[in-house]
Structures are given as structure tokens and as C-alpha cells.
């Protein structure tokens, strides 16, 4: 039986560390990205991580990340990742921690970026990050 999970949390951070006991530490939560004074757009974010806490899910699902610039007349998708498959088992009461890492993310201009967690192509969580220019 397959059932889409509900995302209890979906958080952006600079890094995710886990130890052998499978305990997780989120390093430096992110809400704003500011481009350095001497730099210009487009800018490159070497790494940004996301941690989702999922529950109420059953079975195997595909997950992907979509990056959307929302400060436009209409939403402008700037990146859509490949999908990864994860098995959530058959117990909907289990909480699943799902760490994700995006490398080499290019941001074309300042604005409000929405990071969307997609499960089977449907949005199950969003996290907004404001990208600012210093000028």
C-alpha cells in the first residue's frame, strides 16, 4: 500500500551532520542569502542542505527538489532535480528524517526563492529563502 507522507518540517541549513547513532545536527539554519559586496549575480551557492521530517507515509515514493523564483508576475522555475526513490515502510506512525544536499546552486538574480519538496511530482513542503543584493 502506498500513501504520500506529510512533511512536519522542511528546513534549509548550511550542513547536515549525522553520527553513527543516527542522530542529526542541522548546522546554521538559512533564511537569507546575501551576495557579497564585491560579487555580482549570477552567484553560486556551493552547498545548501534541506532536512525534511516526514510521517503518515507508506511504501516507496520518488522525491525531487524544485527551485522557484516567486518574486515575478508568475512563478519562474529555475531548477528541477532528478528524482530519488525512498522506501517509507508500512508503518505510517514512523517519523522519517530525510536529509538532502544541493551542490552548485546558481542564483540568477535577487528575489524570493521557494524550494519545493516534491513527492511523486506533488509539492509536499516549501521553504522560502530571500536572496539579497548588497547594493
Amino acid at each position, binding site marked *: 500500500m502506498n500513501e504520500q507522507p506529510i512533511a512536519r518540517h522542511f528546513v534549509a541549513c548550511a550542513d547536515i551532520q549525522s553520527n553513527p547513532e543516527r542522530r542529526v545536527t542541522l548546522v546554521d539554519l538559512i533564511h537569507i542569502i546575501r551576495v557579497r559586496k564585491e560579487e555580482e549575480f549570477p552567484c553560486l551557492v556551493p552547498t545548501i542542505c534541506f532536512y525534511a521530517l516526514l510521517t503518515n507515509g507508506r511504501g516507496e515514493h520518488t522525491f525531487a*527538489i524544485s527551485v522557484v523564483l516567486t518574486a515575478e508576475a508568475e512563478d519562474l*522555475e529555475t*531548477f528541477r532535480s*532528478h528524482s530519488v526513490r525512498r522506501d517509507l515502510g508500512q508503518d505510517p506512525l514512523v*517519523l*522519517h528524517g530525510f*536529509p538532502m544536499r*544541493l551542490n552548485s546552486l546558481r542564483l540568477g538574480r535577487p528575489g524570493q526563492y521557494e524550494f519545493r519538496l516534491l513527492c511523486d511530482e506533488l509539492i509536499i513542503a516549501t521553504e522560502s529563502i530571500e536572496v539579497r543584493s548588497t547594493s
Partner: protein
Amino acid sequence: MTPNRKYGAIETPIHLLEMATFDCALPELVLTLRMSSPTTQLAFEHLALDVYHLVVALSDYEKTLGGRGLRLVEKAADDTTITLHVVPVLEPEALERLQRLVELLNNATQNGPAQHQTGGSLREALERTASSVRERFRLAVARRDWKIECQIAD
């Protein structure tokens, strides 16, 4: 510190899934538009609109190949040359789709505007243009007397 036996101990059980890593560094298509003559300042806006139509047509065509369109990430221009960097939105098979676009651009450039299918009534031309992404792309390329060079960069 002595544990307080009055209360029960707690735990926060979480089943940790394997980390997913996504690489956002996609190949880009670099378009160089060489104009036959320098552009006067009065014509800048028309030229900008034609360039915009070209990028939109290219982006629409990429969608027909299974992509989610292209985004313009960098642009530069002087009197006779415009350089555009466009990147696909969708990561899977991005390079393959860009290679198809390069083929399409090379074919369109080699055929030249004079050899394109024309004729028929205005209604037929409207139908052709409205129904075919490829036709809109052809028209966007043929809009100007420019030489289009393209290459894929990592």
C-alpha cells in the same frame, strides 16, 4: 547529576533515510549572435525583443524534448555581437536535450530564411505558427539577418 526518578525518560525516535544529493551544475548553451551591421541606439528595443523571442522559442522547443524550458543566466553585448548563456531547468538528460538544440540551431542557420516554407493565406500562416513550436522557432531565427553560433559549455 542524579536522574529524577519521579518522571519517565524520553526518546525522540526518527528513522533516518539515506541522504539525497543533487548536483545543480548543469551544462549551458552559449549562443553568439553576430549582426551583419552595428545596431543603432534607436533599434535597441526592437533587437532586444527579437532576442527575447529567440530565447522563448528555444525554451519552448526544449520543452517538447521533455525538458522544462531554459533560463537566461548571462548576457553580454556590443555593437555587433550578442552573447547569451542559457541553462536548462530540468537536470535529468539536460546535456542530451542541449545537443538536440544545437543540431536544430545549426540546421536552421544552414537552411537560411530564403529556403523556409512560406506562402498560403494569412490564416494558414497563423495556423502554422500557432500550432507548431518548430515553426515559431524557425520564425524567431529568421527574424533578423544574424549569424547564430552555439556551443555547449560545462
